[in-house]
């Protein structure tokens, strides 16, 4: 019996090896075409997002936006006009949030499928790796969503970023601080509870660097580990220090849910200015329930911002389509992808060819403002890729600096933008101070 099973296992293993011969048989022997395709009827764009794994929700959301826009361009706009109506063909890949997988997909897209442009990435680690490889292989790329600065810390001609990176976002949070100072007194001390792994840490470091400039006396840093089972000790720390005026947590969704629940449990009514993905995802409000009321959240996009679009009907159409697909509102990840992908279209139209160099050149010259598809569903109303110093003197390249990060307050299960005024929600009247747990 044992031998029989062992034999079967051996045969299965061998068969699978043979089956692996399949894809190898299809290998294309073409040498690298460094210039991408020549003209033709389609233009290929490589789209890489985490479609599985812990960041899959954001990845799939962004992909939806890319696919919707592609559909619109190909059908409503009749393709790329400057290329005689060439249609866009997407080559989609799943990075699983892992650099190595992302790299393998990159190779497939760039060298097997010969895409002209790379797009997406999302995770910082993947963006780091792929940005360098795009530079090395001279492939123009637009990275989306908020990422760390490192990928844009080297001057280059190929990798661009239309959304905020830490250096730019902090500039805005500094502006936000001005507003907060008018509203929240005395603004001397707050606590930063951050997920030590990702974006939150950089934000904390930058907040520290800007501390004096913003008039704080002290910022208490409380690192947590993502996926923690319990925040009691952190919340105790907060409770124990009466000088802490508000808390700024930066964490993922399941941590955020636990955090606000426990804040309620321990009756700590400190204003919560949530930073980061966890407080944005639609499920957060649903699963946190009434513990999420009066929580402030910051993001590059809130659903109510469609009111500020230059064509609200168009914006509504897209948002309705998104809602129909996902059951919750058009989110930040989709908004970032929206902005970025229209920039790709913009560059393609100006380049007039599928040649990578031409596209890279066109991207560098991007200058979007006013009534442009890109600004419809984004807080960014202009796009220009600059080499400039961001917050704390950090130098970044090919970075768009119009990337506001508004604050919204969760009331009655919805996000209501309160700052900046240009993007604020019409329906909600901002009040301060927020009521204690008992009063709600």
């Amino acid at each position, binding site marked *: 019996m044992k031998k029989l099973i062992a034999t079967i296992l051996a045969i299965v293993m061998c068969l699978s090896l043979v089956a692996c011969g399949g*894809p190898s048989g299809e290998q294309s022997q073409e*040498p690298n075409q460094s210039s991408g395709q020549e003209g033709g009827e389609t233009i290929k764009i490589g789209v890489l997002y985490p479609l599985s794994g812990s960041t899959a929700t954001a990845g799939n959301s962004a992909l939806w936006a890319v696919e919707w826009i592609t559909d619109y361009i190909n059908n409503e706009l009749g393709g790329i006009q400057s290329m005689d109506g060439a249609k866009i063909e997407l080559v989609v890949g799943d990075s699983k949030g892992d650099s190595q997988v992302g790299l393998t997909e990159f190779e497939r897209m760039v060298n097997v499928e010969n895409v002209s442009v790379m797009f997406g990435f999302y995770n910082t680690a993947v963006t780091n790796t792929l940005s360098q490889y795009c530079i090395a292989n001279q492939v123009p790329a637009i990275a989306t969503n908020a990422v760390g600065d490192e990928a844009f*810390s*080297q001057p280059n001609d190929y990798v661009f970023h239309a959304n905020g990176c830490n250096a730019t976002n902090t500039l805005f949070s500094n502006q936000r601080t001005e507003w907060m100072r008018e509203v929240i007194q005395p603004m001397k001390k707050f606590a930063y509870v951050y997920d030590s792994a*990702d974006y939150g840490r950089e934000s904390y470091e930058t907040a520290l660097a800007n501390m004096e400039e913003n008039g704080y006396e002290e910022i208490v840093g409380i690192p947590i580990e993502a996926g923690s089972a319990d925040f009691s000790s952190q919340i105790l720390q907060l409770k124990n220090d009466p000088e802490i005026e508000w808390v700024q947590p930066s964490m993922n969704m399941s941590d955020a849910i636990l955090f606000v629940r426990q804040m309620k449990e321990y009756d700590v009514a400190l204003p919560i200015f949530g930073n980061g993905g966890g407080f944005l995802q639609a499920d957060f409000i649903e699963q946190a329930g009434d513990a999420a009321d009066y929580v402030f959240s910051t993001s590059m996009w809130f659903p109510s911002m469609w009111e500020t679009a230059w064509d609200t009907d168009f914006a509504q159409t897209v948002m309705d389509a998104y809602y129909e697909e996902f059951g919750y509102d058009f989110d930040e990840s989709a908004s970032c992808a929206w902005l970025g992908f229209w920039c790709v279209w913009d560059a393609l139209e100006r380049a007039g060819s599928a040649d990578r160099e031409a596209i890279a050149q066109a991207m560098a010259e991007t200058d979007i403002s006013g009534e442009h598809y890109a600004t419809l569903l984004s807080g960014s109303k202009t796009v220009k890729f600059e080499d400039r110093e961001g917050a704390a003197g950090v130098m970044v390249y090919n970075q768009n600096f119009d990337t506001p990060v508004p604050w919204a307050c969760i009331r009655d299960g919805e996000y209501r933008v309160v700052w900046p005024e240009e993007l604020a929600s019409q329906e909600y009247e901002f009040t301060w101070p927020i009521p204690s747990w008992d009063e709600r």
Partner: protein
Amino acid sequence: MSKTLLKDKIAPKHILVLALLVLAFLFPQIVTQPYFIQIAITVLIYCYWSSAWNIIGGYAGQFALGNGVYIGIGAYVAVLFHQEGFGSPWIGMVLGGVISVMFAFIISKPCFKLRGTYFSLATVAFLHIVRYIILGFNSIFGMETNGGMGIMIPYTGRWQDMQFGKEGFYYVILVMLVLILVVSNVIRTSKMGYYLSAIKTNQGAASTIGINVPKYKMMAQCISAFCLALGGAVYVHFLLNVSPYDVFGYDLSLEIMIYCVIGGSGTLWGPVFGALVLGIINETLRVQLGSDIAPLASAFYGVALILIVRFAPGGLYQLGQMLINKIKGSLGKKKSETKEVSVQ
């Protein structure tokens, strides 16, 4: 006279190995598609790491599940060395190896006093401790490590910076793999290998007959740690990014162990075989079936591991041998030697 001797010395096995070697070296010239070279690189580095783990886990029979920590140490030391301007990452890589050995020495000394599960647990505990330290601090000894965000390695493309381009990395890692197989073979056929196998079978008895058990266990662990570290340094220069999730992951440690065991731990070719087969299956499944299926594929490996442990503890290597034996048997040839490969 010399002709007969030569003929006797070269077995079909050796010719096979030579042929494989030639094939491996010619691979990038035949298959020029960088996509496939990319996959090959990933497979090769796992073959390398699994073989390195095999030295302590397979030959010495010490289940050091937490040995992935040395991959991370090698990676970080090499990158930080270069980033802080001390010199070329090549030197950093060697330094990373040396520091890993130091760590291995300090950590393993108390660990080896434990037996069985406790030993494995202790090695994993150290892996986690180092990981938390890297995650928790933005800089170590004044050098910026960025905590969980990791360090990006800027692209320069120069070999001095340990950046070789696709083909280059393929050859570098292939050479490393060949070297570690040579080292493994030397260990296996030497006195040390004999002692290790005695220790693996029955540590107490080995000690009684006069084998210096602590010394040889430590030697195996240090060699393993050194090799793992070198691999880590090279690999992160391939990814151009080093992050604690990539190199200090418990999953990585588990993976190299699984490939080694499924392939056949304690044998020379087992780990290579395991990493090769599973790596190729991985890629195929991912491309053919799409990303949604990927976790299912990983679940399949767990099942495969359970089945192999139960029914074919010698791993694929043993299965392969059984298959060959069956074929030879049915062809009428008598097999004079029967190898009993056992993991226990």
